[in-house]
């Protein structure tokens, strides 16, 4: 009875239309299953044995990517409840913590964010210690450094969104650095050299900090700016770079190993 049911499910047109290969019990099917699946084909079909060992990569790159996915998922869920306005943001935080069912989304998102920063640092450490930035992987290391910076920026822009004391003061400290830019920050060296007939070109209303926070002081414009950067611009940039990163791993000959 059960066997019959199993057979009819396994042989049905619906099942065959979804899973084309069937149970991967031969090498040929193992190849096909990886090639035929859009997610799995991030991988080649076979990899260097030394490179898949846990004590070689520590899974650090893979877990960085996994944490990025967790962050995307929990981030989307949080976006349903969160308004990036001075009036709404903090209230929505309180609601997310006490009113929303299954209320650990914010926790998951925040701790994954911290974990991703740590994981990416550890991944960089591993890549350095195995000398995997050496030819032919130089460029992928460069992409990696940009990814590291984007990871920091993702976390930094997200830090403001709860709009509590912790958030605005951490961002105040961080964004104050922007006004110290030489030439283009109002409080930075040589900014006052840039003037026409005594009228300053660089002042708190147009300098690097203004560009970052969208106003002279942290406020609603900053929140909106950071929200857009955090939820759209930087994740998109990071996703594109990750695609290049993964593509390049394969084009550079797979995970590194002794020649």
């Amino acid at each position, binding site marked *: 009875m059960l066997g019959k049911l199993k057979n009819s499910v396994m042989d049905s047109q619906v099942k065959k239309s979804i899973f084309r290969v069937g149970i*991967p019990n031969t090498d040929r099917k*193992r190849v096909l299953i990886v090639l035929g699946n859009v997610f*799995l084909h991030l*991988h080649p*079909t*076979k*990899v*260097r*044995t*030394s490179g*898949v060992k846990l*004590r070689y990569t*520590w899974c650090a790159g893979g*877990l960085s990517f*996994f944490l990025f996915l967790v962050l995307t998922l929990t981030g989307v869920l949080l976006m349903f409840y969160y308004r990036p306005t001075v009036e709404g943001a903090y209230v929505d935080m*309180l609601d997310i*913590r006490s009113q929303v069912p299954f209320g650990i989304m*914010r*926790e*998951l998102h*925040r*701790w994954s964010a*911290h*974990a991703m920063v*740590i994981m990416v*640092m*550890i991944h960089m*450490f*591993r890549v*350095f*210690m*195995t*000398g*995997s*930035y*050496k*030819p032919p992987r130089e460029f992928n*290391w460069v992409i990696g*450094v940009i990814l590291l*910076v984007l990871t*920091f920026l993702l*976390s*930094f822009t997200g830090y403001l969104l709860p*709009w*509590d*004391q*912790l958030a605005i*003061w951490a961002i*105040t400290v961080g964004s*104050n*650095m922007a006004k*110290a830019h030489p030439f283009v920050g109002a409080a930075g*060296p040589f900014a006052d*050299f840039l*003037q026409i*007939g*005594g009228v300053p070109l660089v002042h708190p209303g147009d300098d690097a900090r203004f560009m970052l926070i969208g106003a002279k002081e942290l406020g609603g414009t900053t929140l909106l700016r950071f929200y857009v950067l955090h939820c759209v611009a930087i994740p998109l940039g990071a996703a594109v770079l990750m695609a290049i990163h993964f593509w390049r791993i394969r084009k550079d000959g797979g995970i590194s*190993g*002794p*020649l």
Partner: protein
Amino acid sequence: MTEHAVVHANPAFEAFKAIANMLADPRASFLGAVGGLILMLRFRRYVFNWYVGAFVLIVEAVVILAGMMDPNFKLIIGKPDNVPITIMLFLSTITLWLAMTQAVNNERRAEQKLPPEEKETSNQKTWVWPDLLYIEFIALILCTVALILWAVYLRAPLEEPANPSATPNPSKAPWYFLGLQEMLVYYDPWYAGVVLPLIIIMGLMAIPYIDTNPKGNGYYSFAERKFSVSMFLFGYLALWVFMIITGTFLRGPGWNFFGPFEYWDPHKVVALNNVNVSDYVWVVLFPKLGDLTGIAWFKQGLPPVQNVVPALIPPDMASIRAFGHELFMAWKREFAGIIFIGLYFLAGPWVMGKTFLKSYFKSLDFGRYSLLAFLVLTMGTLPLKMVCRWLFDLKYFIDTPWIKF
């Protein structure tokens, strides 16, 4: 008397806390960390194995757990946003041992004319389905479980609603920038907050292009790339991870130093009497020379420099001339610091090329070698300034109204 008070009067615990507070002072702990790193690398054969690694982890865990008995320590360690830093401390220890143990193992194998351990299987292939996916699946599940437990047991922090008029003390940047915030103690914002991060990013990107040593590609190694690994470990562990830990746990109100078992007293006042190189020259050294030689010129005191901004568009000759004069005065006042920094960056590469960078000096072309030397020297300015601050209360090497370093 409650039992609680008795626990805290335990003389052994009090002594432990006093010693820990002393050792945690950046002066002691930074030099300790750097010295420790050098010793660990020197005696890597004895240090990097599973036994010592496990021992170090246990010591770290015991210190932290024992410390939790102290209310001040518990307050800082237990802060939800600080938990990742404790995790980072443990993961850094584990990964350092993971990497170096394999490096030392490969070093031993090389002496027996064996290839690196990774070579044994690097010509074999493993099926992605099912072998790699299996590993990935397990890692993914473990990671998910850890995250869910973390999320259930520790609430994300939410403080009072934002209030732009109530500045908390201390105000801290997010933890991964605390290394840079720590640098603000020693450098001005234009350098610590803008130029230095840019140099770090550019420097990281440049690594594959200046490290032309073909050895150690694709396996853990130390002996074959001593210099590059040491530099990276110094930058990563001592200047990044260590500074983050210091900035998080040991910097309290006013960004003053507090030992891990000290109460964060917002009224703690630390006298700042830092002086510039030019002060040493014109106020301390030259008057003495004046007494010795009888030349009055030496006794003129610190030359005054005004902050004059030249009007360039449209050019106003009077203000440009005034600026020129102040520029000259600045040169005069700061000449010692300028010469020192100039020599440091111009003669430094040559000196290093004759000593510990000899092989790089020979094998790299001019551009690559200059870049390497510049990055090494820039990294060196951080400990240099820190040590000068501690020893001589040094504020700036060069202090002009326009730019300070």
